[in-house]
């Protein structure tokens, strides 16, 4: 089929139904290209102007045994004609490329939802691997749903026959067939994905040709098949005017570091050891050496933090990134940075623990570790990103605090933010503030540089870097005498230094915005959150308010110190609900700090909150 067929025979508009949002989940074997299909559908929708949010889910194994439940990889996207906050609780449409994908995802599907099935994968061996005794297509399992059976393999083979690919490569294009079918069903423009394929597979023209052929074939199948009489359209959302891009949290975080380096006029150094789900930050930064970015793939997590400490001492914007297990290994190094009072950002992209846990699943269980996971009295600022695009701003804030207060800063993200994506209205880079901090150049100490003579306002000590004449000095992990930095075992000095280090961090509360409360002034429940639960909390609150129940929500970017008004905020409402993907970590902090009887909503299932879970809990608290 040629391009002409496509344009000439576009679906009749009379069959087109307009809906305001839809949740689609692509599910298949981890080798089936579901992440690619999902990302393409997302980008096409973004360019079309929808608001959207995504939730990729994939196994930790690179190639789990084909056809099995552990090998299932999925990608969920919600697209909407209005501003949305999550990737949706329940898919409306499930694309199931094999029996395992169906079995793993069916329970999540909305009753009456649509299933697009790759029927040829439902053969005895695959059914058995998925644990089906009989085929769910025939045995009534799928009766509550609208099922569209597609012999995707035959159709893909047919479509790619002219392209020049052969053997096992032929079926690799079937994700593009499925994507084409979805493009037809939801009236997505084809051009963005076609040009993406052309660029991506430019060096393998036969693969590009096969993928484009399969993609168009899927589209045309939708048009000609009797199974789908109606197509749907989700109109562009009314977003604030501006230039948008679709961004994942890891990319936004990496760009936030590049921006922080530029606005502080420092070279960026990123020392890291590969770890899921933080590695993409290393990958992204290593592409930007023309910004003066140095990336160092260290021999281990300890070397990664060590190299960052050295780079900071030498005058770089020093950053190390990891996930929970790596943060544990960096703990001693971070406490050295606290003691040396050197600026540094430590990124923890949280994943489910303990130990190796579930490396590809989100959790918020490192908060208390970030707060307290160091020996000795070792305070540092902790900030957390709330959404993929917010990772840019939160990272920039982490850099600002690190430099202004000469301190390591812990920046929390998680798997959901790191790999999820959303449209981001790009900031005007000329509006980014100057966050540079001058290096010390002169000595006031009678010929002796005084490395712990503090700024009277911020209590930050001067940053004197090697190469500066006259400021030669030694720093060490042994307790230092205030002002001189000489080794000191004096009891009063250790008390003073401990108090000063604590005060320096606590006083940052005066330099951060008050937490904003969104919702009703007479709220019966305040929902207090942090990190990636932002979307579910906001959406849950909206639903409850639509029912006329007064409720409010507040979301924390700064976890240490808390915003100065937080005590007043949590004490001014009858009830406080703290939903977290852990067993109650912010909850403990809030209860301990403010002596309020806050209640937790806690889940550690390796999945984000559904909006209904938040919604139900708020209602339950109001009714009680």
């Amino acid at each position: 089929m040629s391009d002409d067929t496509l344009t000439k025979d576009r679906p009749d508009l009379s069959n087109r139904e307009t809906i305001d949002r839809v949740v689609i989940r692509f599910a298949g074997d981890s080798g089936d290209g579901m992440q690619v299909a999902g990302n393409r559908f997302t980008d096409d929708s973004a360019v079309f102007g929808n608001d959207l949010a995504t939730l990729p889910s994939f196994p930790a194994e690179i190639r789990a045994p084909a056809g099995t439940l552990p090998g299932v990889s999925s990608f969920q996207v919600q697209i909407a004609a209005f501003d949305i906050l999550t990737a949706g609780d329940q898919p409306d449409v499930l694309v199931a490329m094999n029996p395992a994908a169906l079995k793993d995802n069916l329970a999540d599907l909305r009753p009456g939802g649509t299933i697009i099935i790759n029927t040829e994968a439902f053969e005895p061996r695959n059914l058995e691997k998925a644990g089906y005794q009989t085929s769910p297509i025939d045995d009534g399992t799928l009766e509550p749903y609208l099922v569209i059976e597609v012999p995707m393999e035959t159709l893909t083979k047919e479509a790619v026959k002219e392209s020049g690919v052969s053997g096992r490569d032929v079926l690799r294009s079937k994700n593009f067939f499925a994507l084409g079918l979805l493009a037809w069903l939801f009236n997505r423009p084809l051009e963005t994905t076609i040009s993406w394929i052309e660029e991506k597979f430019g060096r393998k023209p036969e693969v590009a040709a096969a993928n484009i052929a399969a993609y168009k074939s899927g589209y045309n199948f939708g048009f000609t098949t009797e199974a789908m009489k109606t197509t749907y359209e989700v109109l562009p959302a009314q977003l604030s005017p501006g230039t948008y891009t679709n961004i994942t949290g890891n990319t936004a975080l990496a760009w936030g570091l590049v921006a922080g380096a530029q606005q502080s006029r420092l070279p960026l150094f990123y020392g890291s050891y590969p770890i899921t789900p933080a590695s993409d930050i290393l990958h992204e930064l290593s592409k930007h050496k023309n910004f003066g970015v140095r990336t160092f793939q260290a021999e281990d997590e300890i070397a990664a933090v060590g190299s960052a400490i050295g780079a900071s001492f030498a005058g770089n914007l020093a950053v190390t990134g990891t996930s929970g297990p790596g943060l544990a290994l960096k703990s001693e190094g971070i406490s050295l940075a606290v003691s040396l009072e050197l600026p540094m950002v430590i990124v923890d992209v949280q994943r489910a623990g303990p130990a190796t846990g579930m490396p590809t699943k989100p959790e918020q269980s490192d908060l208390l570790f970030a707060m307290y996971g160091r020996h000795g009295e070792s305070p540092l600022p902790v900030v957390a990103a709330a959404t993929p695009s917010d990772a840019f701003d939160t990272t920039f804030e982490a850099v600002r605090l690190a430099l202004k207060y000469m301190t390591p800063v812990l920046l929390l993200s998680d798997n959901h933010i790191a790999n999820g994506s959303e449209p981001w209205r790009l900031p005007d880079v000329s509006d980014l503030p100057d966050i540079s901090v001058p290096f010390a150049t002169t000595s006031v100490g009678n010929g002796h540089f005084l490395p712990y003579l503090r700024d009277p306002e911020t209590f930050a000590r001067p940053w004197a870097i090697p190469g500066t004449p006259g400021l030669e000095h030694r720093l060490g992990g042994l307790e230092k005498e205030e002002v001189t930095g000489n080794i000191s075992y004096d009891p009063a000095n250790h008390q003073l230094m401990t108090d000063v280090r604590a005060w320096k961090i606590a006083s940052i509360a005066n330099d951060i915005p008050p937490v904003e409360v969104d919702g009703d002034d007479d709220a019966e429940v305040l929902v207090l959150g942090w990190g990636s639960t932002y979307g579910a909390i906001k959406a849950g609150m909206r639903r409850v308010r639509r029912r006329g129940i007064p409720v409010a929500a507040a979301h924390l970017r700064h976890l240490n110190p808390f915003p100065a008004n937080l005590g007043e905020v949590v004490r001014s409402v009858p009830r406080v609900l703290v939903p977290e993907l852990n067993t109650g970590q912010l909850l403990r902090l809030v209860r301990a700090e403010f002596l309020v009887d806050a209640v937790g909503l806690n889940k550690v299932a390796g999945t984000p909150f559904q909006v209904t879970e938040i919604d139900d809990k708020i209602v339950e608290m109001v009714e009680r």
Partner: protein
Amino acid sequence: MSETTTLSYTRADFQTDQEVRWCPGCGDYTILASVQTFMAEMGVRRQDIVFVSGIGCSSRFPYYMNTYGMHSIHGRAPAIATGIAATRPELSVWVVTGDGDALSIGGNHLIHALRRNVNLKILLFNNQIYGLTKGQYSPTSESGKVTKSTPMGSVDHPFNPVSLALGAEASFVARTLDMDRPHTIEVLKRAHQHKGAAFIEIYQNCNVFNDKAFLQLTGKTERELNRIALRHGERVVFGPDSQHAVVMEQGAAKVVPTNSVPADRIYVHDEHAPDPTVAFALSRISHGPYGPTPLGIFRDAERPTYDSGLNQQLVDAQTRKGPGDLAKLLRSLGTWEVE
């Protein structure tokens, strides 16, 4: 390196106002004096010198050097120093470490700094004992060593630090003795001139917990018998009357009576051999200071350095893509406009 010919430092310029707190009689004092003496001659501005150490007796070193310095955490000095040297190639970065710090808790960082050939000068003070924690055996203590933690004798097999460094393909490897100041200074000078990672094992006497560990190399009668001086381009012979010689036989270095072999069979030392195999063979003549032991420069070979490679990539990326443009980066994944 910012070198000028007008620098006129003395040893005193490198001394600090901090009271030196090693035990009286410790070998560290002699090494400190050698290093300070050498620094005055090195021709590098004081502000361009950085000393980084880990934890242990030797790691107090930076406090006594009037340069930039950091006394860090146990074993991590090579990693921290890598962050300095990789980002500031114009600095002269020195790591001071001990046998426990470098070879036990910090073994991983040591081998990787050597493998990468980061431009660091690593001084390993080897006293074959844990001094700061008061006398446990170390990874270089001889097997069977009776210490506080090994009352029935250690069952560990020790490292040979020179073999280890050569195994990690260190481009500069040398061994010297704390009490031989001219030799120490000569080796420091060569390490400074070397581009890339330089590893120097310094046999250092701990007179409190492991006194006379190096007697075979320092005793009045023993030293002449046991010191094998490695000199580039010279035949390796030793002993009061040069009566012992080193020959290479089937890939191994062997000590034989000099008069038992023709002169041209005696090994002629080549520091610059690109392959570390022969240097490794030399390092196997002794597994510790217990008999004839080679001293001097085992290897001084040229290899690309980590910092030059890393920084060249920045230059290349700027040449190819132009300087970074943040607004352009933010638009690099494709954008759309909302009116």
